[in-house]
């Protein structure tokens, strides 16, 4: 096989590894990335996006990111872009080296930048724009070095700087730096280029500082690569350093004349780079966050059974995932029977307080929405969207805002959001349907969820208080006794707070639900409350299952008599309210 084909094969294998990684290890990140932007096919969106340094690449990045809607397309995009980056790195290495015989046996070095950028993409806040920016910069280097006349090459490099500033932003000076490595140019010329390039870079940034309202350091570091502003510099340094180091390494590694040694070099360098890539990527993965994202994706799709399956497979421990698991249990009517089969995080793991964070506010918004607290869900959804650090709007939250306004009969606002969503690719049909429902009540009535939400939502006014969630849930339930989930959340809230007096007090409110059998954990709560007030279980006013009665007697006996009760109870009663009450949270 020819060397070139072997190299292509290596690149393809690398791409395949990237693809498989995203599909098998990190798929939920696609949903996260896709939902926190709202790419619109409008001129205004284009103009607004490109109106800052690096805006052009940001626009392309956002255009591509919308296709993360499909994880296979997303994984393919990452694979292709990283292959392109690796191949461009190789091309630039070869042209800068200007040897007649390229050092093919050092091909593995060209994977260093791609590996570094792969590592960066493991952070959910890193955008595709980062890979696009560096690829564009390398393309400029490759193009400029191919200009044979020194004077024109220098001019091309300098001319590219302001253009690159507009297109890629912060790293606009990087091609000029790489050109300094070009072996054919003498030191004098390089010093001239360095001086001219430095002056031009300062002028470009100073000029831009009057044009755009960003801090100076962001004009140097870049604006559109990382969702969180403070991270711009770090990701830019990591990315650019990886390219610089790889190219310098290639230019200065020794030539290996003997074929046998070349083969050893190929194998050795490939193993080192592959291991390094594995090390970097595996240590950059945040699997806890991936787990949250997987839950979140299921909540978005309302795939409650999948969430419970995931919970059964690996019990979640983080507040967000616990809250989503409880939501799934609530939606499937299992909260009262199974919530203590899983780790519980107190009442915060049931209904989270508002936090100024796009994730936290979104989680609480989802829970409030499904409970029927439509206005509070809208409030938290709005805040989640406003909290997106890079000021993008969220297509998912825009959908939620559309729905809540539709349910609340705030039709003009619902129309406004729906008309915006009509300008997206994947949500156009959904937006069309909303608009049709606004004008056609029969059509609206086909959407059972919206109809139900309109029915159960609060119409009496009270002020939301995170400290009085029980009152809020109680009022919600008493407004509409069909809202069984609100009642069960109220009960669960009291149990998770270990607040048995209120639990028992509120329990009577649920008599309209006519349970054939009171949910198991509620029975456990009632029985425990009774035992706290009485010496025996005789005379309990609730129909408690004999097994529960027997178990609580057994539990109480172990709890009272054994010093190592915790261990004994854990094996037998870990999944009961009693165990949670004594040892949980």
């Amino acid at each position, binding site marked *: 096989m020819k060397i070139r084909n072997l190299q292509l094969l290596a690149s393809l294998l690398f791409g395949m590894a990237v693809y498989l990684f995203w599909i098998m290890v990190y798929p939920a990140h696609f949903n996260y990335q896709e939902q926190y932007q709202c790419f619109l096919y409008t001129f*205004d969106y284009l103009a607004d996006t490109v109106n800052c340094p690096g805006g052009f690449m940001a626009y392309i990045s956002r255009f591509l990111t919308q296709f993360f809607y499909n994880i296979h397309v997303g994984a393919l995009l990452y694979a292709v872009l990283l292959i392109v980056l690796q191949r461009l790195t190789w091309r630039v290495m070869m042209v800068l080296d200007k040897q007649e015989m390229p050092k093919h046996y050092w091909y593995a070095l060209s994977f260093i930048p791609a590996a570094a950028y792969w590592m960066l993409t493991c952070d959910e806040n890193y955008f595709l724009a980062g890979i696009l920016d560096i690829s564009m910069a390398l393309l400029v280097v490759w193009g400029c070095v191919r200009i044979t006349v020194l004077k024109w090459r220098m001019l091309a490099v300098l001319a590219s700087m302001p253009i690159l500033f507009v297109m890629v932003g912060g790293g606009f000076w990087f091609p000029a730096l790489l050109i300094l490595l070009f072996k054919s140019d003498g030191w004098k010329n390089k010093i001239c280029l360095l001086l001219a390039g430095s002056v031009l870079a300062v002028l470009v940034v100073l000029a831009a500082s009057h044009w755009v309202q*960003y801090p100076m350091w962001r004009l140097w570091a870049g604006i559109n690569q990382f969702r969180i502003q403070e991270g711009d510099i770090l990701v830019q340094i990591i990315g650019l350093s990886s390219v610089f180091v790889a190219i310098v390494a290639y230019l200065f590694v020794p030539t290996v004349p003997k074929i046998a040694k070349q083969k050893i070099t190929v194998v050795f360098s490939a193993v080192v780079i592959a291991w390094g890539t594995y090390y970097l990527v595996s240590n950059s993965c945040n699997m806890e966050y991936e787990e949250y994202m997987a839950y979140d994706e299921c909540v978005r799709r309302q795939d409650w059974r999948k969430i419970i399956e995931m919970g059964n497979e690996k019990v979640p421990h983080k507040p967000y995932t616990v809250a989503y698991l409880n939501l799934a249990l609530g939606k499937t009517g299992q909260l009262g029977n199974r919530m203590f089969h899983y780790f519980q995080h107190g009442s915060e793991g049931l209904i989270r307080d508002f936090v100024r964070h796009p994730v936290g506010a979104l989680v609480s918004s989802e829970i409030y929405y499904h409970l029927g607290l439509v206005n509070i869900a809208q409030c938290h959804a709005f805040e989640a969207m406003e909290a997106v650090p890079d000021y993008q709007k969220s297509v998912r939250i825009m959908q939620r805002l559309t729905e809540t306004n539709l349910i609340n009969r705030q039709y003009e606002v619902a129309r406004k959001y729906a008309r915006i969503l009509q300008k997206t690719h994947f949500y156009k049909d959904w937006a069309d349907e909303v608009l049709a429902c606004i004008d056609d009540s029969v059509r609206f009535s086909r959407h059972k969820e919206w109809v139900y939400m309109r029915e159960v939502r609060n119409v009496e*006014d009270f002020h939301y208080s995170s400290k009085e969630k029980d009152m809020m849930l109680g009022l919600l339930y008493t407004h509409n006794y069909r809202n069984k989930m609100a009642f069960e959340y109220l009960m669960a809230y009291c149990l998770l707070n270990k607040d048995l007096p209120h639990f028992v007090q509120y329990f009577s409110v649920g008599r309209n639900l006519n349970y054939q059998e009171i949910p198991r954990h509620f029975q456990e709560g009632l029985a425990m409350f009774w035992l706290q007030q009485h010496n025996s279980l005789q005379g309990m006013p609730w129909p408690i299952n004999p097994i529960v009665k027997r178990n609580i007697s057994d539990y109480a006996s172990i709890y009272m008599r054994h010093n190592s009760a915790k261990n004994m109870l854990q094996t037998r009663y870990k999944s009961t309210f009693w165990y949670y009450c004594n040892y949980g949270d």
Partner: protein
Amino acid sequence: MFIVAVSALGFMAVSCGRLSVERAEALNQAPILMPDYAGVTVPATIAPLNFTLCDSFDVVDVVVSGAKGEPIHVQGTSVPCLPMDDWHVLLSENQGDSLSLQIHVQRSGKWFAFNPVPIYVSADSIDESVCYRLIAPGYEVYSKMGIYRRTLSDFNQTALVENTLVPGMCVNCHSFKQTNPAYFTMHVRGKNGATLVESPDHGMKAYSTKTDSTISSCVYPYWHPSGKYIAYSNNETRQTFHTMATKRIEVFDFKSDICVYNIATNELLSSPLLRTANYETFPCFSVDGKRLFFCVASEKSMPNELEEVRYNLCAIDFDAASGTFGSKIDTLFQADKLGKSVSFPRVSYDGRFLMFTMANYGQFSIWHKEADLYLLDLETLAVRPLDEVNSSDTESYHAWSSNSRWVVFSSRRMDGLYTRIYIAHVDESGKMGKPFLLPQEKPIEYYDALIYSYNIPEFCNGTVQMDLRNLENQLLSSEKPSFKYKK
């Protein structure tokens, strides 16, 4: 056939590509314009009132004409934009008179004529631009926002300051001295928060305005006509959220006082009468600078008695020479007796009127659907609701033009959530003309896509000189000068 078609095309080309409106059937009804510009009163320098028709048609023909000047004639399959230069010429020639908007539509080859619609062109001039904040109508969290300046004679909007300049900052409460941008103040909240004060004698400085003697930082600024003082209120503010659909947020004060900042001495001045247990807020100087109007409500248990909090309109004397206040407070309008609450008092710069917002309770009328604008005649102290401009939705913040003949105000009437800017003419007797929505090149598309609210609209005469890098440096500085409280 081909020759006939080519001839027909040629004929159309000769007649400027415009179909001639012939034998139009009268519809005997006025067209429904979006935005509703029918019968509005506009200044002669306003940007073209582009609109769309709330009707179906194949072709629309629009003629704007006045008693003087060349009519504007446009035609298209959608309502074309009115040509800027021709529009300005036509308005300037018809100042003090009216224009007629004649609209014909063609449906299935037949022309129909709507009744002509008048647009009144006032002889009163208007200020060059309007400044406002654009912000998403959220609750606690803010995303991208900024203070912008929009010239009224065209559609240009420029950013004065955007919160991308310093990460995490929020900008609000911008204020000019009687529309003069040389005197400017603005608050910045967030980690690097400060209050910016800029005046010709003083330059631009970012201050920390919280002192040991005041309950909070300074908010709700209003310039003294001399440019030497700025009135502020100090508010300990909280907010809460409603659970029902028709209400959204309540913003209320646990405490609030009023003070006046002396720019030259860097001192906050106040009076025990302005620092009581009651809630004093929204200061506003009279035109001669000798009175300070403000709102005051009795102290209540908050937030439980929030719906019992009702602000009256009051005033106290102020002596600019000595920086001292009068010894008594006059109540000019006792809104609580009517079960209402006053906010945002603003005196017209001719000293004749005071406009305020009135809602059922509380001070943050912008989230009250029932909030409307009212006018107090400062000569007779008579108060009347401004029915000419009020709608069934929120009308709230408002500001006078420098000649007191125009008022700009924010309203949620368009969709119930996003505030938009309306401008209305006021004659000498305080009668208002029909307000018009701030014109845009393509207004329906523009406002439909805009997910920001217009906040604190203020007229502005001239360019605001904002040295952004100086501002950035001052905000990021850890050693900001502080206001001092004069004890």
